[in-house]
């Protein structure tokens, strides 16, 4: 069993968390992840995570829905079974608007939710490593991985120094469930000071 070692720091207040994130990254270390009970705006930028492209995926699903609905209805009414409805045109585009719209929304919504679950690896019966039970209650949990460059003692000292009120070490089985968000995190450099101002 391959294991990874993490140092976990608990923060009480997002006002302490923001400067702490900034300091840890400034010291040249990557944060494994920060677990919060609610969406803390700006934390993703402060951590150097890139913007999500989920909305682009939603757009693509949406136009796919539009195309499918429009072309299917046109095919049905003009080629598969051209039905004479009171002598009206075989391609009544205005009458296609409601179904096209509904199908667009349906495809976009279902597609986005499935993509969201896939990207975040969320599904019933999925077991993940939870670093602290109060991360979904009232604590902000910053997790740093111990590497050859950062020993457990150093990481603990670092977290204590930046204001964590409780620090402990955890060992977790390595695997996809831990996420790889530290990989897309850019190291802190002086040019993006602005992002962590608040």
């Amino acid at each position, binding site marked *: 069993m391959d294991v990874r070692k993490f140092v976990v720091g608990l923060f009480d207040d997002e006002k302490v968390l923001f400067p702490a994130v900034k300091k840890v990254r400034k010291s040249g270390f990557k944060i494994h992840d920060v677990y919060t009970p609610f969406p803390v705006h700006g934390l*993703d930028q402060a951590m150097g995570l890139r913007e999500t492209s989920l909305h682009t995926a939603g757009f693509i699903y949406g136009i796919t829905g539009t195309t499918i609905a429009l072309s299917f209805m046109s095919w*049905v009414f003009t080629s598969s079974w051209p039905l004479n409805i009171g002598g009206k045109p075989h391609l009544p585009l205005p009458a296609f608007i409601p*179904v096209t719209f509904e199908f667009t929304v349906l495809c976009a919504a279902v597609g986005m939710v499935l993509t969201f679950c896939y990207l975040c690896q969320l599904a019933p019966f999925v077991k993940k490593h939870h670093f602290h039970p109060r991360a979904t209650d009232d604590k902000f949990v910053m997790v740093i991985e111990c590497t050859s460059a950062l020993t457990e003692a150093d990481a603990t000292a670092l977290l204590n120094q930046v204001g964590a009120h409780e620090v402990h070490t955890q060992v977790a089985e390595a695997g996809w469930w831990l996420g790889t968000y530290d990989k897309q995190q850019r190291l802190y450099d002086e040019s993006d000071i602005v992002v962590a101002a608040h």
Partner: protein
Amino acid sequence: MSVLKYESAVRAPLVDGHKTYHQVTEDIIRPIEAAPSRLWKIGFGISVALLLFGVYSVYREVTYGIGQWNLNKTIGWGWDITNFVWWVGIGHAGTLISAILLLFRQGWRTGVNRAAEAMTIFAVMCAGQFPIFHMGRVWMAFFVLPYPNSRGPLWVNFSSPLLWDVFAISTYFTVSLLFWYAGLLPDLATVRDRAIVKWRKRLYGVLSFGWTGSTKHWQRHESLSLVLAGLSTPLVLSVHTIVSFDFATSVIPGWHTTIFPPYFVAGAIFSGFAMVQTLMIIVRKVLNLQDYITLEHIEVMNKVIVLTGSIVGVAYLTELFMAWYSQNPYEGYAFFYSRANLLSPYGWSYWGMMACNVISPQIFWFKKLRRNITVTFFMSVIVNVGMWFERFVIIVTSLYRDYVPSSWSAYYSPTIWEIGFYLGTFGLFFTCFFLFAKWFPVIAVAEIKHILKKSGESWKQEQGVLEDKKVDEFEEVMHH
């Protein structure tokens, strides 16, 4: 004393009391962990009894056919479609609150959105029963779907408003369900992580899909909520628009009007908010959530009710005006004889509708009455009675006298099985709602925590102290 005001002095806090994040969790999650109260058991029992009566009524209808109902020539639609439109209308408030108010950045939505969305889903479930069982041979219901079949294939008619309904209602149900459940994931994880009992930890572990609260997941969650809100906003408006097309595209006097879509949407919001009020007033009391669903919330919803009620009133008057102005004898007959004439067979329903929907909500122009819980509760029930009358008036008074007097129908009144079906949907609705209120967080916990430091009472008071400082001191504190 500084004149600089960072916080609005006019807006009351959205969360009363000096709460910490943990206190918010405690307040909202605790009822889930406690044993169900006696009141809950009684309410649940009544709901299940109603549901069973509904199931029996539907059983009779399926076994013996539509003849179990008093529908006849020319009243082919009666209580069933009235109830369908009524329930769909009620199902409009939830997504309106969660989607449109999210886009308009209305902070107060966080107190009521979760329960309103749940209510929406249950109401749409109830609504769906009526057209499905109205088909008569309900085992053929799948014929409404465009699937490849051995009859040609013969497809459904994509230019029929009844088919648009199939797409609109099923899409609305699916999207509302996804939106609701996506929002529930983090809160279910909160329940899971607090659980001491093993089965609860497992159950909510499965339900919460393994949510951890990772920053990246929150970032995607926010993006998902925003896009779903953007998609749901036109969706909400489209659903009742399409329901109104069922009437407006026909050539029946009283239905054949272009005013129907906006008039139906306003009516839907009106009745939906009324149902939210009915439920929230009970829920806040029973679950002791007065700090989260405050008088402020009740007041703003009453404002929406008086606004939409008045829009509906204007629509009623416009219809009457157009019936006169068009000088169309059939329109005139439908409006001035079948509806507005109190002495005609169904005149009572028209004036009942007017009294409940247009006249009575006007009391909400008075702040004192808007903030009175008893008055609000009674008004919310009256509004929904009125909105039921509206659909009954539209359907029955336009149908019961055809163009040919020989096909005029006898006075239509429902059979016990028609009423039973309606009561059964009440049973379904409240059974679902009772289960939801017991097993799910009725208020979006994470969202309340998110606004706690922007609109909570403690925050407002702290800001008040800050704002009294000199401008440069204030600036110093705000930026560090």
